[in-house]
């Protein structure tokens, strides 16, 4: 066998190597029964430090099979920001329920490691392995409340369907390999021929597998149940951060490699996108449970984001990435408020403004941002996606998205209405911890200041 003569460039992987070491370290440290604050803040500080480390090591490794380019770095930063926010949420929640932090934190770290590898992978095998590292860790996170039947149910459900979708995707990859005899993206671009039935079949299966993971309709059935059953901070995590990684990787593969098949996959995704927007928004309307509502809302957002992929240009992809950044702030923020109020029934949000004006104001900002009303950041990124779509001639798709945006206003505003305009039913038991307050503050700043000064746009 020929040994590749290209330099391996291990140092490009430095952030990931450090991350692996650190996550294993936290796993071992758990044995020492340290104070939970130490584990938590150590992880957070490390994750923040990693943001700076990631920036230091751009480049390609393993002959182009691993690439840490600008967009990968951008995505990794969003992933790490999402991870930090989720850790903050996790801490106060687990403390309340006496769940060991040293179990949850390393799992979350490993899952983020998988995501970071995923956005850098330029080869199908490492792509798949990273994806599985991410997914397996998430299954564990969903079931972290071992004695809670709902958490268990959600974990099993997620595991089953997740395994199924992984198998589909793997089959797709195998078909593509069969047609092209390579798994490397750079080689794939060269050998990919148009009108190969085998490649097309593989591509479809591959897309279906990924659509499972980001819960596009009709592959979304698992999402509401899992999101509802999982512990709330885990829901915040899994409805946000993995989507960043998968959409990031997904978009690159579709746009960079399979651009010859643009007509095929875009028409496929158009159908999924419209269906997703419709089902996500319409099913969110009657929900009485706020976690379920946010689950459907996150399905709907996946639909809007897919519009950016359908555009099929680099600008469209950049719009998707920018969207995911703001989505991280507003979605995790909304879940943070749900954790703070410790209420799942929307009815119980009535009159909360009376008791907690600051939290209510934060929720108001998140809801308007999710709707996409200026001057919040949610508007800027939505505008960005719509702009790219109009540029590529998808005006009708924008009109559809706009109509569903109007529908979404109703259920987002209902939360605001309950909090501000109805009389309270009962005084809520609010969990106020410093961690949670910091997370909410960061999310509020992210979804307002970035709306007025959009420096993050690429």
């Amino acid at each position, binding site marked *: 066998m020929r040994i590749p003569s290209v330099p391996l460039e291990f140092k490009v992987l430095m952030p990931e190597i450090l991350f692996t070491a650190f996550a294993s370290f936290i796993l071992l440290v758990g044995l020492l029964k340290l104070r939970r604050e130490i584990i938590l803040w150590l992880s957070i500080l490390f994750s923040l430090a990693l943001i700076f480390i990631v920036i230091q090591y751009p480049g390609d490794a393993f002959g182009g099979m691993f690439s840490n380019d600008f967009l990968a770095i951008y995505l990794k930063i969003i992933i790490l920001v999402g991870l930090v926010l989720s850790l903050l949420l996790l801490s106060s929640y687990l403390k309340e329920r006496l769940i060991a932090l040293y179990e949850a934190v390393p799992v979350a770290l490993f899952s983020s490691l998988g995501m970071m590898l995923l956005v850098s992978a330029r080869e199908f095998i490492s792509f798949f392995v990273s994806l599985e590292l991410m997914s397996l860790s998430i299954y564990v996170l969903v079931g972290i409340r071992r004695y809670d039947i709902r958490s268990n149910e959600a974990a099993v459900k997620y595991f089953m369907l997740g395994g199924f979708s992984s198998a589909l995707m793997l089959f797709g990859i195998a078909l593509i390999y069969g047609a092209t005899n390579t798994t490397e993206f750079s080689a794939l671009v060269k050998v990919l021929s148009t009108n190969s039935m085998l490649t097309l079949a593989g591509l479809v299966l591959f897309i279906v597998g990924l659509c499972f993971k980001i819960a596009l309709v009709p592959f979304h059935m698992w999402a509401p149940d899992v999101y509802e059953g999982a512990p709330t901070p885990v829901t915040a995590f899994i409805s946000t951060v993995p989507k960043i990684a998968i959409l990031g990787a997904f978009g690159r593969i579709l746009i960079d490699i399979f651009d010859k098949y643009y007509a095929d996959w875009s028409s496929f995704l158009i159908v999924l996108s419209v269906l997703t927007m419709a089902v996500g928004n319409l099913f969110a309307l009657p929900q009485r449970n706020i976690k379920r509502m946010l689950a459907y809302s996150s399905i709907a957002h996946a639909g809007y984001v897919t519009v950016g992929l359908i555009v099929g240009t680099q600008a469209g992809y950049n719009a998707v990435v920018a969207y995911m950044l703001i989505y991280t702030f507003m979605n995790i923020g909304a879940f943070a408020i749900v954790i703070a109020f410790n209420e799942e029934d929307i009815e119980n949000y009535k009159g909360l*403004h009376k008791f907690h*004006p600051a939290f209510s104001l934060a929720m*108001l900002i998140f809801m*308007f941002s999710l709707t996409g*009303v*200026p*001057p919040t950041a949610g*508007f800027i990124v939505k*505008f960005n996606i*719509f*702009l790219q779509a*109009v*540029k590529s001639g998808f*005006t009708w798709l*924008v*009109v559809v998205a*706009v*109509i569903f*945006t*109007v529908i979404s*206003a*109703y259920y987002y*505003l209902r939360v*605001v*209405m309950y909090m*501000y*305009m*109805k009389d309270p039913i009962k005084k809520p038991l609010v969990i106020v911890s410093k961690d949670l307050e910091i997370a909410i503050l960061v999310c509020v700043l992210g979804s307002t200041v970035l709306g007025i000064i*959009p420096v993050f*746009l*690429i």
Partner: protein
Amino acid sequence: MHSEEVVYNGKIRLELKKNLIISLLVGVFIGGTIVLSGYAINGLKFPILSTLIFFPVIGAAFIAILPKEKEELIKFSALVISIFELILSLPLYLSFDKTTSQMQFREEYLWIPQWGIKYSLGVDGISVLFVLLSSLLTVLCVTVSWREIDKKIKEFYASILLTHTAMIGVFMSLDIFLFYIFWEAMLIPMYLIVGIWGGPRRIYSAIKFFIYTFVGSLFMLVGILVLFFYTGSSDILHLMRIHYPYKMQLWLFWAFFAAFAVKVPMWPLHTWLPDAHTEAPTAGSVILAGILIKMGAYGFLRFNLPMFPEATVNMKPFMMILSVIAIIYGALICLIQKDLKRLIAYSSVSHMGFVTLGIFALNQQGIQGGILQMLNHGVVTGALFLCVGMLYERAHTRLIAHYGGVATVMPAYSAFFMTFTLASLGLPGTNGFIGEFLILLGAFKAWKLMSVLAATALIIGAAYMLWLYQRVFFEKTNPEFLRHIHGYGDLNSREILTLLPLALAVVWIGFYPNALLGFMDVSVKELINHIVHIGAIR
């Protein structure tokens, strides 16, 4: 707490209150003089428009951090901030150059370099007066809410100030993206104002208001995206100079129409208005009627007319018909209203019909009359809503049947109400007459039949307003009402000071309309020249 202590605390509070008023007012005047002299020295290089936009935001943030127990302090802060804002806006009136149609007080900074979007502000003869009107009405909104708003006071005044910011932002923006940001941002505080502090059906009305306007606005957003994509620019002044293909003009005309027609509101998209106006607290109604619905008509003038002139000319008959339907329909519905506030709300539909009729007459008289009538309507209907709010505060009912003989109990109030009634029905000598006369003149030039039909509404207008006045102020005094009025009596000085500026404006514009017409003369001429130049009007 012992009762003596309460009395003692009350005394201290009174004392504090007096000192506060004096010191705050002195502060305002000193600050005002400094600012004005600052403008004079700076030769107007001062970023006056940005200051106007951001000062209320800072004010709202300041109010938000005040402790919520200090209600008096919150109210006075809001009053001082709004008065200061009014003083700040005076240079717009004093040093506005009436001889040019160019944008004035320009400010321009690159905002989102990736898209080439600019933070670009400026006012011309069409928009400058709305900024002034908004500043004036915001002060009055603060004073009229003094006693009416008794819960979540902090949030209320912050919302009022933020609404003001968003509204003047709409009139000042010269970048279409910035325009849209302000246009939509206004929805959030307004939704809260109607939904939190409104009447019994406030939640229904607030959601209806939000959804209606949001639907319209999003269609405009698609239009903006298409414009932006087609031209690669978001500069309104640049967009005006481009000639678009006719088919595109037509689509864009309807996209923008969706947003503006909902806001105006034009028949048949008006149904949110009676609900929102009726259920909103007095200040909310005043803002809605005074400024907010003018944003729609302003949008027609700023976007539809100059950017899509051929589509506009072709749609002119249709628009005029819609306007006349709104005029007559609104007026007829007023006749059967049992609710005071709802009656005035429907009269808004009728009056705004006049405005759009004037605008789509597409001639100097029509458009000038339309703009003047917008200002008149802001003053008069704003004042009528203020009056109704004052009455509601006393009797806690809006039903006309519950009143009667108010004139015998509240003579000063009746005089004010009479002034505004006469202005509303367009009596010569009041501002209403000038506006409606110009509009009818313009419409007569454009399409005689429509002008004649619209003129009939003047008669219906006189009928419903005078009948309303008769039922509420004359006839037998309602004993129920007398019982409620006990302890309140006629207007107090705060209320008189609230109504007086508007009453003076009614007479002032009525006798000397050139004070306002002079502002818009050149700009409107330029607008019409622009349409003629494109070749749309033969």
